[in-house]
Structure formats: structure tokens, C-alpha cells
């Protein structure tokens, strides 16, 4: 994985020193909160319901064991012994003290991490495929390109004050595990008939108040020119994106208002001016970065057999383990959705265990998924049983990946100032109905339930097979029910099914939906989403509302 060079570290050190000074000045009352707030937000520090919340960037969701151990240390020393992995592959801490913040930043920077550009109207953390470098279906590892985007976008002076925040995702396979069509820019790395690499570029996707799927702005941009092309998109957005209305400021609104043809014309015109200026990285820089993502030295003699005689282990392998491109290896997903747990939360002790396992068994790499789980991407099959046993010992071996209990939930009104309703209790109540019967969960099959506590959609409710949106109804928590969303390669936006519910009502409604689906599916392996797409909303609506 990528290691900082002297320039990366110098940038982080300078920015940390700058922000530490700003914190000190605020604590001495030399600057007001109105002056300080935009500065702290640019450094990932929010004031939430109970305390300051810090969002730490995890570039394209990749961590080393050392970095994960530092995240555990921060949870233990500066927070309340846990962290929350987010739908943007970052981690959040909920109980941070401003007066300890300088020390915290120093600790983070020791392991090449920071928190800047995790808030504010800038290019946010670049996200990617959690199976990158391990998936058999990728054309190349997408992370070198995500890393190049990270370097390009870090403190980019032209794009530090965009009309609104800007999110980019990069994948390299036809299977979309990063929801690229729901990003401001989605990049799919492909290989053409000549063997060259290039990107299909989506633009204008997003969730939130106005959910829109991204559209193709260019079907092929050679890999050597994707940076200048991205710059052209950002320039058009920065110039014409609306700054008069926060609800219409995202690029998706600009693309929609202009139409994709006119937007494309403007981007192409801008790129025609930019491309000759030599903004793209030289081949040597590509080579330098790609070399740092060179595949581990997989053992060609690694045993491809797996002893599945332990039924619990077998269940976990069948549900949470994916094929690896190298024979004798596997990709293991660690569920952060244990029984009665909080989606995405991990204790410092659990983080330490994961760090140990990564170092010992997984080439010292951990990935964060946008579904709030973690991945050990390079595990010898012969080590899987030991990994599973270690995970089982700390409640991290729940075999529920992509099942009804693998629910995404934002922090909601248990933590977040923006939320209108709580999300986590809804996820817990739905999961409680199924979590004691794994056979029933597997019979239901793939079912992605996603819960957001407000219209901003951090819980990705618009991409849920079943989406739940918390709203405020005359001071009371209420929940809208949406169906038919997908953040995968078959991307679609969930639609509201009917009137909303209270807390218990929404849980019962999901129960009725699932019961109807099981009675109506055309075959045992027809997914909930496919049954919905085949039948349309009417019978589901009848099942829920009578």
C-alpha cells in the first residue's frame, strides 16, 4: 500500500501545525466561534449533540495494521473506547475534546493519517472498491488512481471552496462495490481491445435531498489523461455550480439543469484548453505510485483446499468470504453488524485484534467498506480458520454479509445535530427479528436495508433495496419507507412506497414486506430487489398498507 513520501508528510505536518495554532487561538478566545467553525470543519471537527465529533480520512478505505492500531489508541485515549466506520470508508469519533485535539493530530500524523477534507465544500476522501487488488474481476488495482486523485485534490487551492462538497469513487471492475453512480464523479477503470487502460467517467450522481444517478460524460478517457479531465469537470462545476442555494449547489443539479449533452460540451471545451498545459502526472509518477500498490508476493504453493468440517466456520465462509484472484487465497469480510450491535461501530479492543490479524495473516492490509464493514483482502485459505476463530472471540464473526441484518445506518439523532430521527434503534429492531436465525436470513437472501436519520442520506437510504428515512413529524420521530434502490452496477433509486410510520410501525412494515417477498418470489434465489423490479410497487404496497 502507499507510503507517504517527504512531500506528503510535509503537507500533513504543515497543516497540522496550522490547525493546532488555530485551536490554541480559539481556546484563548483570540478568535470567535464564527471565525473558528469553518476552520475546524475543514479539519474534520464537528460539534454534534454530545461533544465534538472527529472524522478521520481513510483514503480509499485502505489501512495498515499500524494505522488501525493507532485508530484504536485514539479511541482509547481521546474518546470513549470505540469508533464508528462510515459509509464513506472513514472513521468517526464521537466524544472528542478540543483541548486534547493537538495531541490527537500529532498521533494521527505519526501513522500518515489526518482529518482534513473530511468536511467542507472541497473534494472529500476518495473512495474505492474494498476488494481492490484482490478481486478476480478487476482489470487493474484502482487504488493507484485513487491515490493520484488524493494527491491532486489535497489542499487544491482552486477546489477548496467549491459550491458544495464533492465526492469521487474509483473502481476497476464491472461489479460496482463502491456505488460510483451515486458520486459526483464515478470512475470505472477499463481495458480496451488494444490492452490500454482508460476510464469511463460518470458525473452528477448523488443521494441526499435530490437523489440522481450519475450519467456518462465520457465513455473513454485514457488513463494518462484522467486527471486533467477530472480537473476540467471540477472547473466547469466550480464556475457554474449554484452558490445561491445550498440545496441546489451539488454538481448533480448543474448537470441536470444543463443537460448531459451541454454539460459534456462545456467539459470537453474546458479540457481542450487544459490538456495541453501538462497537468497530468508524468509516467514516472504513475509508475512510482503503482509500484507501491504492487501485489503482495502470493505463494504459488498456497493450499487451495479448505476444511469446512466446522459448521459455524463453514457458514461464515459461505457468507463472508469471497474468491481471491490468487489461488490459495481468499477475501474475508468482517461484519460490523453483530447481534444487538451498532452498525459500523468497533471497540478499541476489536480494532487491535483486527490490526493483529492483518499483520499476521493478511499482508498488513485492512479495508473499510461503504457498507460499514471491514475486509481482510489477502488471506491464505489455510489461515482462514485461525482468522475466523480470532474474530469469533471478539464478536466479529457474524456470518451475515449482505443479509437482512447487515444494515447500514447513519449515527442518526443519537449523535448527529442534523438528524430528524434516530437510525440505529430502527436498524437494531429490524435486525433483532432475524438475528437469532441465520437459516432464515439466508433463506431471505441478499437484502440491503439502509437507514438514514435525515434527508442528507448518510445512511444511503436511496440506494437501499429497502430504504428508511427518518423525518420530523410535528416534533415526533417518523419514518418513510422506500423500495427498489441499488448502489451496485444495477444502480437505481428507491422510491417512497406510501405514508410513513412511527418507530414500531416501520419495523412491522419491513416485516410485512419481507413476508410478502418470500411468498411472491419466482424462485428461491430471486432477490428481494429483483422481485420488486419484476412485480412493481403495487403488491408490496398492498402487503404493507392493506
Amino acid at each position, binding site marked *: 500500500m502507499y507510503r507517504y513520501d517527504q512531500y506528503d508528510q510535509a503537507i500533513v505536518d504543515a497543516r497540522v501545525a496550522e490547525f493546532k495554532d488555530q485551536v490554541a487561538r*480559539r481556546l484563548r*478566545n483570540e478568535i470567535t466561534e464564527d471565525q473558528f467553525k469553518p476552520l475546524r470543519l475543514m479539519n474534520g471537527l464537528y460539534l454534534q449533540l454530545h*461533544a*465534538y465529533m472527529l472524522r478521520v480520512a481513510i483514503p480509499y478505505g485502505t489501512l495498515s495494521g499500524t494505522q488501525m492500531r493507532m485508530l484504536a489508541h485514539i479511541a482509547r485515549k481521546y474518546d470513549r473506547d470505540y469508533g464508528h466506520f462510515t459509509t464513506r470508508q472513514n472513521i468517526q469519533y464521537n466524544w472528542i475534546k478540543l483541548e486534547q485535539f493537538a495531541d490527537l493530530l500529532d498521533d494521527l500524523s505519526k501513522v500518515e493519517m489526518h482529518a482534513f477534507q473530511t468536511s467542507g465544500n472541497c473534494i472529500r476522501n476518495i473512495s474505492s472498491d474494498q476488494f481492490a487488488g484482490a478481486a478476480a474481476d478487476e482489470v487493474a488495482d484502482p487504488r493507484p488512481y485513487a491515490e493520484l486523485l488524493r494527491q491532486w485534490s489535497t489542499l487544491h487551492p482552486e477546489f477548496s471552496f467549491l459550491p458544495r462538497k464533492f465526492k469521487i469513487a474509483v473502481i476497476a471492475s464491472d461489479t460496482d462495490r463502491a456505488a460510483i453512480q451515486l458520486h459526483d464523479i464515478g470512475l470505472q477503470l477499463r481495458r480496451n481491445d488494444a490492452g490500454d487502460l482508460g476510464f469511463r467517467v460518470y458525473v452528477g450522481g448523488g443521494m441526499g435531498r435530490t437523489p440522481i444517478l450519475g450519467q456518462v460524460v465520457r465513455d473513454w478517457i485514457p488513463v494518462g489523461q484522467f486527471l486533467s479531465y477530472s480537473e476540467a469537470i471540477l472547473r466547469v462545476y466550480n464556475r457554474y455550480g449554484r452558490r445561491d442555494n445550498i440545496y441546489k449547489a451539488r454538481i448533480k443539479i448543474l448537470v441536470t439543469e444543463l443537460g448531459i449533452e451541454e454539460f459534456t460540451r462545456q467539459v470537453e471545451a474546458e479540457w481542450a484548453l487544459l490538456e495541453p498545459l501538462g497537468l497530468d502526472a508524468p509516467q514516472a509518477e504513475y509508475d512510482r505510485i503503482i509500484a507501491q500498490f504492487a501485489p503482495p508476493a502470493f505463494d504459488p504453493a498456497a493450499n487451495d483446499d479448505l476444511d469446512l468440517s466446522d459448521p459455524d466456520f463453514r457458514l461464515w465462509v459461505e457468507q463472508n468470504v469471497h474468491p481471491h484472484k490468487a489461488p490459495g487465497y481468499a477475501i474475508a469480510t468482517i461484519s460490523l453488524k453483530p447481534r444487538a450491535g*451498532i452498525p459500523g461501530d468497533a471497540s478499541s479492543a476489536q480494532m487491535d485484534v483486527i490490526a493483529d490479524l492483518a499483520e499476521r495473516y493478511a499482508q498488513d492490509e485492512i479495508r473499510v467498506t461503504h457498507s460499514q464493514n471491514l475486509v481482510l483482502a489477502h488471506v491464505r485459505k489455510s489461515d482462514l480458520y485461525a482468522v475466523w476463530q480470532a474474530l469469533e472471540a471478539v464478536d466479529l464473526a457474524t456470518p451475515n454479509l449482505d443479509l437482512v441484518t447487515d444494515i447500514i445506518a447513519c449515527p442518526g*439523532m443519537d449523535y448527529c445535530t442534523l438528524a430528524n430521527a*434516530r437510525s440505529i*434503534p430502527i436498524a437494531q429492531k429490524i435486525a433483532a427479528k432475524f438475528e437469532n436465525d441465520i437459516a432464515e436470513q439466508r433463506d431471505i437472501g441478499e437484502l440491503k436495508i439502509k437507514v438514514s436519520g435525515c434527508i442528507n442520506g448518510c445512511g444511503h437510504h436511496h440506494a437501499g433495496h429497502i430504504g428508511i428515512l427518518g423525518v420530523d413529524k410535528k416534533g415526533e420521530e417518523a419514518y418513510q419507507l422506500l423500495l427498489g434502490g441499488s448502489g451496485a452496477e444495477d444502480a437505481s433509486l428507491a422510491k417512497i412506497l406510501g405514508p410513513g410510520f412511527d418507530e414500531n410501525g416501520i419495523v412491522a412494515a419491513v416485516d410485512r414486506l419481507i413476508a410478502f417477498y418470500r411468498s411472491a418470489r419466482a424462485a428461491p434465489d430471486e432477490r428481494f430487489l429483483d422481485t420488486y423490479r419484476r412485480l412493481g410497487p403495487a403488491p408490496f404496497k398492498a402487503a404493507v398498507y392493506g
Partner: protein
Amino acid sequence: MPRVLTGNRLETGDVLWWNGSDWSPRIADAVAIGDEGEALVARLVAEERINDPVLIDVTGEPGAFVPTTTRERVRASGPSVRADLARGSLSVEVI
């Protein structure tokens, strides 16, 4: 309807309530604020040591005030999903 004054301490972010002479981490210590509330908020804003000072509506009696909104009840009790982190002065059951 009674009102109480709440905010977050600058240095720590801790949730606090005004007890008539100082700040308390317990809503049970909060006092009802009368017409002087707006002036008090204006003073606190100017002092810049308490973030987001605000008067909120509550029901009940002193010592047992309960905020009228779910949001403020969560602030007073702690996250409803982490009983181990509860503040103790307001039961999560009231959320």
C-alpha cells in the same frame, strides 16, 4: 411552558445546563429561565466560552425537567443506544 438554558463547553464539547449561577452537566440541576433568558444568551454568545447557547422548552418541575423535543431529550440523556454512556440525570427511557 418553562425554558432552560443549555449549550456545549468550548474546551470539551460537553453538554451543559445553566443552574442559576454556573453550568452543570446534569439537566436535573437546570433552573427555569424567565424573561432574562435572551439577554443571558446574548451575553454568553459574546463571551465565546459556551458554544451554541440556546433556550429550550421543557415540561415538568425543577429537578425533573424533561425537554419537549426528542433531540434535546437525547442530548440530556446520552445516546439511546449506549446505556453505558448515559448521563444519568435523565433516563433514556424518556426519549
